[in-house]
């Protein structure tokens, strides 16, 4: 099979196992491309992509933009901070105005869950979800699984614990779907207040003791505490959170085995992980960033190939 089963990337939930396999195989080729002296291929030279960011982002936006440029697509960028959204324009109107400029694909980050799905029902363009509220962040989950595959040789049968603020995290949900689809075992670990009430219904293990969780796992994906999404206090203090759910070198060294540490960024150094962990050989945080470009190139390339000439 050499074609995705979907026309949009709205969430991992809509993908099947073969889709993920195809994205990874394609990303392998693009990873080779971005390590060449000249890191650009002309495939998408007649495709225009709009990056619509209705919510702040540094790394994801840069990563998407770089991926698009490496594929030779024309790119236009839009951030809601400086736009007519502030003047009361609706989402569909904003996007339709942009599509009138003959845009083929939209990469969108939006604070509302389901914004991408809504858009895909109303506009004629391929939609890539770059994060919709606390719902999904599919490219992050893909690059996380891809990085695990690269480091450990595969995802199937691996034990992955996602630590931290599961409640507000789109990365957690997308990762749970992606890892389970590929046959990994998933555990979530965090303070009870930051674990969604029915999270076990997704078939994941739940643990509130970090040491136990780390002793169980092969990979720990450390999430950031999303202070900006917290309307109330979910734990007494940052210091107390760090004491119970922060990973430091002493804790890692005291485990029975060497585990791999991941972080989707941006890191709050000294909160969820200490600097010596983030910069250690066990962390693959910067590999994740590099793989992010290759994965996004693969996703955009495969979706673009379904836009008929």
């Amino acid at each position: 099979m050499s074609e995705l089963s979907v026309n949009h990337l709205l969430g991992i939930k809509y993908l099947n196992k073969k889709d993920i396999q195809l994205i990874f195989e394609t990303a392998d080729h693009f990873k080779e491309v971005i390590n060449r002296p000249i890191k650009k291929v002309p495939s998408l030279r007649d495709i225009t992509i709009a990056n619509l960011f209705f919510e702040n982002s540094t790394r994801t936006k840069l990563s998407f933009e770089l991926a698009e440029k490496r594929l030779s697509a024309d790119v236009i960028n839009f951030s809601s901070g400086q736009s007519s959204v502030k003047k009361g324009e609706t989402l569909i109107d904003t996007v339709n105005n942009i599509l009138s400029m003959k845009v083929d694909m939209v990469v969108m980050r939006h604070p509302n869950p389901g914004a991408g799905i809504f858009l895909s029902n109303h506009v004629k363009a391929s939609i890539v979800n770059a994060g919709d509220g606390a719902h999904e962040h599919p490219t992050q989950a893909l690059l996380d699984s891809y990085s695990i595959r690269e480091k450990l040789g595969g995802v199937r049968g691996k034990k992955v614990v996602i630590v931290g603020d599961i409640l507000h995290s789109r990365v957690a949900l997308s990762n749970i779907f992606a890892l389970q689809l590929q046959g990994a075992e998933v555990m979530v670990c965090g303070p009870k207040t930051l674990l969604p009430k029915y999270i076990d219904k997704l078939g994941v293990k739940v643990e509130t003791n970090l040491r136990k969780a780390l002793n169980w796992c092969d990979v720990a994906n450390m999430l950031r505490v999303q202070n900006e999404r917290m309307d109330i206090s979910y734990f007494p203090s940052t210091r107390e959170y760090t004491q119970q759910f922060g990973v430091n070198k002493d804790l890692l060294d005291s485990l029975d085995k060497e585990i791999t540490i991941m972080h989707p960024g941006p890191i709050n150094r000294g909160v969820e992980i200490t600097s010596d962990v983030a910069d250690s050989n066990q962390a693959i945080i910067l590999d994740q960033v590099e793989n992010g470009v290759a994965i996004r190139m693969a996703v955009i390339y495969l979706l673009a190939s379904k836009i008929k000439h």
Partner: protein
Amino acid sequence: MSQKVLLNAKEVNIILHRLACQLIEKHNDFSNTVLIGLQPRGVYLADRLTKILKADYKVKNIKSGQLDITFYRDDFRRGDKTLKANTTELDFLVEDKNIVFIDDVLYTGRSIRAALTAIQSFGRPNEIELLTLIDRRFSRHLPIQPDYRGRQVDAINNEKVIVHWQENEGEDAVYLIEK
């Protein structure tokens, strides 16, 4: 569908040796030459020629690689199928090198056009030549001709030329297939 044998194993073998000799005539000890097989099917021919040059003509240190042209093709989004990429393996820079592109069948010339663009991502070669086992003349879409050709074939457009290799299909042979 009918098929006709254009070349049998013995003929393929004779042609491969002739092509190897022609390469030696031009490139001597291959010190500044690299052989690049074009993915997917040119790779078998490149491997075979490299083996012959090493084993039968005692040429040492031949540099060879594989180049995938998928992302440089001009028919992206034009066909029904998504173009699937293959591996590129070039563990050297091609700057100032003499390159020989190797492919099994030269037809429209579009793959070679893509390969000429693709190779630029690896540096600026001194010169580029083209070697093909089969040259389907009269069917070119672009002004591209081989420097070394195994056999020239006149085939009409609804015919297909297929090369079989011992390593892959279990026999060395070239077939003309009428669709």
